[in-house]
């Protein structure tokens, strides 16, 4: 009887345990936000079908970011891709937009490779086949449409016999973004020297456009110089005079941005004082900057409701001592001082520890930066980390056009040709730029030296132009 009872008890324990484990796993899978819950996170990890790409690994436990409807199939995933990347593709004049492939006249091409869905070429959770830029199809994918009857060699004899695996080589073609690679652009910039006569990065113009920014709280914080006596920290609060001095030295104090503008920002509950305002407070005035930050590697976790990114979680090499820092606006800009010059170099190098980052201080770019910092050279002549990775770009919204710092450092990173127009060509000729970006050793060493590779694109465009002119002359009788 005792044996029976103990066996029965075991069955009950087993049943309860099974149910409990099942319930725990179900909660981990189905609870929204389980990826940020310390108790449910281990359960969710078990459901990851495979490691995600470098673009998404930070948010891979926020399954619902992409799988918004578990039963929605490809369309749901497609919407998720477009939701984050659609605007960027439009801006890039995407050469292979979906509309090209939903046209029935291209049905035969779609049958060979379904280019109506991003995941056809960018499948996730497949680390074993994931290459640069999250591409999961073999490099010769162009052959699906540009070989055989429509062989590119027929239209461009110079391309006849080229391996389709080389189409997307640096400086040649990209599937989506060819803004710096199209033939007439190459021709227009063919004669440029390595270093342009005028080498200068565009200046920020926040102060000039601030009045026009929608939602700027000029009613509460009129644009006027504030002094220490005007600081509106709550009565009775012990305020560190160092903090006040830092604040007084900033554009914030010069533009009427008082303590309460950040510490009692409407996004943080308005009337309640917050000692450590987050990015939502900054967004009150710097909305576009924060939008970029949340779209990039530094803020994407926050955007998905996950705890902030820490360098210790990164796949890139980071400094050991920085592993537990949490990333927000102030981690680079510093609270109260908001020194953009510090943010542009020290902000990056406090964490990043890869070869390219470590080589920066040996580079000609850094030498120029030092000259600008010491006042020997004019503003915009130095090249900081941020000059290339968080560049100043012309930004147009419905309300205002401005030169904005793109805080999504991933926006121009891959393929590197995306950096050519907004960054490199402020100082360098196109030919030199193409060669430099095509040299992996030079990139890794932070451009300390000259390119050892030569991209043929400019030469080919020139040769074709010459041939067409000769043909035309022949047709017109000399």
């Amino acid at each position, binding site marked *: 009887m005792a044996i029976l009872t103990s066996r029965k008890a075991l069955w009950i324990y087993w049943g309860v345990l099974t149910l409990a484990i099942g319930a725990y796993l179900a909660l981990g899978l189905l609870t929204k936000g389980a990826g940020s819950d310390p108790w449910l996170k281990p359960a969710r990890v078990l459901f990851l079908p495979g490691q995600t790409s470098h673009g998404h690994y930070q948010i891979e436990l926020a399954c619902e970011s992409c799988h918004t409807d578990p039963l929605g199939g490809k369309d749901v995933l497609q919407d998720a891709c477009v939701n984050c990347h659609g605007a960027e593709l439009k801006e890039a004049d995407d050469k292979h937009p979906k*509309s090209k492939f939903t046209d*029935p006249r291209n049905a035969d091409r779609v049958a060979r490779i379904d280019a109506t869905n991003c995941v056809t070429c960018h499948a996730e959770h497949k680390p074993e086949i994931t290459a640069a830029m999250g591409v999961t199809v073999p490099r010769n994918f162009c052959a699906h449409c540009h070989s055989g009857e429509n062989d590119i060699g027929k239209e461009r004899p110079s391309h006849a016999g080229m391996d389709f695996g080389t189409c997307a080589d640096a400086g040649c073609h990209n599937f989506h973004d060819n803004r710096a690679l199209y033939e007439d652009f190459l021709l227009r910039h063919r004669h440029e020297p390595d270093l342009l006569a005028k080498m200068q990065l565009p200046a920020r113009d926040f102060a000039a456009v601030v009045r026009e920014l929608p939602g700027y709280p000029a009613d509460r914080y009129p644009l006027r110089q504030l002094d220490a006596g005007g600081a509106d920290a709550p009565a009775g609060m012990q305020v560190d005079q160092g903090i006040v001095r830092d604040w007084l030295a900033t554009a914030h104090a010069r533009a009427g941005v008082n303590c309460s503008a950040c510490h009692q920002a409407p996004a943080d509950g308005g009337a309640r004082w917050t000692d450590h305002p987050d990015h939502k407070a900054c967004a009150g005035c710097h909305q576009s900057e924060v939008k970029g930050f949340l779209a990039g590697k530094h803020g994407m976790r926050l955007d998905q409701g996950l705890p902030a990114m820490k360098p210790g979680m990164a796949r890139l090499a980071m400094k050991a001592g920085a592993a537990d820092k949490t990333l927000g606006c102030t981690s680079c800009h510093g609270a109260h001082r908001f020194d953009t010059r510090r943010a542009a170099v020290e902000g990056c190098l406090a964490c990043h520890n890869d070869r390219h980052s470590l080589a920066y201080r040996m580079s000609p770019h850094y030498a120029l930066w030092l000259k600008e910092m010491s006042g020997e050279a004019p503003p915009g002549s130095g090249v900081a980390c941020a000059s290339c990775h968080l560049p100043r770009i012309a930004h147009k919204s419905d309300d205002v056009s401005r030169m904005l710092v793109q805080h999504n450092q991933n926006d121009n990173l891959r393929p590197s040709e995306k950096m050519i127009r907004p960054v490199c060509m402020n100082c360098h000729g196109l030919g030199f730029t193409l060669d430099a970006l095509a040299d992996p050793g030079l990139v890794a060493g932070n451009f300390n030296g000259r390119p050892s590779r030569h991209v043929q694109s400019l030469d080919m465009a020139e040769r074709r132009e010459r041939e*067409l002119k000769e043909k035309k002359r022949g047709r017109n009788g000399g």
Partner: protein
Amino acid sequence: MDKTYGLKKTACMMVTVFAGMGAGAGHAKDMSFKEVADALHAVMEADRTVYTRLIVNRLQNEEKVIKASEHWKDEKALVLPAQMFRFGAEMVAEKKANFTYSLLSLWPINKQNAAKTAVEKDGLKAVAAKPEQPYYQTETLGGKKYFTAIYADRAVAQACIACHNAHKDSPRTDFKLGETMGGVVIRLPMK
């Protein structure tokens, strides 16, 4: 071939197209594929001609105040008439409207706009020979049956022939005003 294009959603879609033509959903319901295609083309041709004559030809060729360029963004220029047409077609495709259209040619500057399907090849030849007579045919693409209508696209202004005859990638350089340069292809799904 010329069956009724009576799908309700298509009728709704057509309301917009016919807004300026005095026709409504009641009429659209009973329209044949051919009538729908003809009506769509009437709007397309009118808009295309207006843009080419009143914007591009007037400002570029007559008044000479601004250029039109395929690199309109980089060169701060007007969008070419062919691009205007294509961007519209792309926007319609994004809206998942129940039809597609494109501008093709036997002598395309952009090789992607060459005739591809057998119907396109026949149709473009037919309308080049007889521009006043549209070409209608059915075809099956990707397992779906379509009513395809092709209409002659003629050089309505100096701007058309000046550009096509001078462009480095143009396979033909002797176009004359009024001549057929290509065709507008409209496809209506028949299911």
